């Protein structure tokens, strides 16, 4: 048991890594269109595995000390993109629901609506225009697919997450964990279970809420 035992020690994403079969398009998208600087590259062979092609691993700076990274393998054939859906890594049969295909994505953070619109401008002037913009009062995101078919989202700052919200999310997750361990979980069962948990914990929750309110008043 070390002194680090109970601490939250991670410092966010170091890199989100993806294979590419189109490094030229990938560079045109991330560097030339979006303006993400190339910050690192590693040329290597696969010494650890048999039949591993030579490859290059290259990194773009996406701000806040995070990076997006690609692997390009010399001579490796990409998948057949004429059939089905998905990206160059994950292929799905024709007819797979869009919402499922899009569920795996990377969302990048911008501070303001103006900045979001600047990325919209850059994308719309490129071969990868914005495909979807969700503008819903306090929420604003734009989406496109990069040359590899990976869905990239830009999202502007929502209000900061508050302690009350954490409490609520934790109740939801506790209810979720219980409900999915029973047969046939549904949203309804989740919300019923959550309501039960709230009643069980109402007092404590109320105290926390009141503390949050007094905090706010004091500010």
């Amino acid at each position, binding site marked *: 048991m070390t002194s680090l035992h109970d601490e939250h020690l991670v410092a966010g994403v170091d890199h989100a890594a993806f294979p590419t079969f189109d490094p030229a398009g990938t560079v045109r998208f991330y560097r030339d269109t979006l303006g993400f600087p190339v910050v690192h590259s590693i040329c290597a062979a696969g010494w650890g595995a048999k039949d591993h092609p030579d490859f290059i691993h290259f990194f773009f700076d996406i701000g806040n000390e995070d990076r997006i990274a690609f692997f390009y393998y010399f001579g490796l054939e990409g998948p057949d993109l004429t059939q089905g859906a998905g990206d160059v890594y994950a292929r799905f049969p024709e007819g797979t629901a869009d919402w499922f295909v899009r569920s795996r994505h990377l969302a990048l953070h911008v501070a303001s609506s103006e900045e979001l619109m600047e990325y919209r401008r850059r994308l719309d002037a490129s071969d990868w225009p914005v495909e979807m913009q969700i503008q819903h009062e306090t929420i604003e995101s734009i989406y496109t697919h990069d040359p590899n078919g990976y869905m990239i989202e830009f999202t502007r700052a929502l209000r900061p997450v*508050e302690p009350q919200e954490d409490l609520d999310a934790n109740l939801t997750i506790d209810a979720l964990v219980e409900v999915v361990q029973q047969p046939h979980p549904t949203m309804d069962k989740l919300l019923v279970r959550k309501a039960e948990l709230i009643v069980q914990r109402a007092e404590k929750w*109320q105290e926390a809420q009141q503390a949050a309110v007094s905090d706010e008043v004091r500010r």
Partner: protein
Amino acid sequence: MSAVAVSRHRIGLVVPSSNVTVETEIPQILGRHTAARFSYHSTRMRMSKVSPEQLAAMNAQRERCIIEIADAGPDVILYGCLVALMSAGLAEHRRVEGLVAEQLATGGSAAKVRSSAGALLEALRALGAQRIALVMPYARPLAERVVAYLEHEGFDVHDWRALEVEDNHAVARIPAADVMGAARSLDREGVDALVISCCVQMPSLDLVETAEQELGLPVLSAATAGAYSILRACGLPVDIPYAGSLLRIDALHHAELRSGSQ
């Protein structure tokens, strides 16, 4: 106006289970709109007693209610319990409206969301009111939270009355005379607007226009403010008769422009 095609709008209402007034007064008000037709779709959060514990539990039913009401594909959802939000913490309506908007956006619904609490602030600001007076049905501790909430939003609550009715069913039966009596007893010196029912359950629609004529200042209620906010969210003109000057605001501005005043 009569040449314009009548537009149709679906209004989602999320109300405390014991509330009967929202679903009565909002349709009464909006039914008088000349350029639009509305349909109303409700869902309920369990609550019978207006206590902090019940209010907290009720707020937690929000997610379920939004899922239910969004299934009906409304244009605007009114989250219809003012005190549930105002008692939960300062600026709570912004937090909750933000969470609901996010929930709707995440599920791909284009519905807008408004709350009674946010609508009251929006209406007071539309009237240019700064110093205000209030009539509320609540017990004193809850009433004090409502006053603190409004003051935190920048209003000067000059005077207020709390009728101290805790049972929410009973709130719906508060006699009009009691409400008018409370309104008359308020110190209205320098007051810009009177909120004759700072509660979506306390009936007051019929009193709004009468009180405005008698007391000589703009009078609004949680219901007229809610209707105002719904009309704005739908992008419709606000011009409805017999419900206080708030709901005639676009007609009044139009008249002012014609007479050359500002």
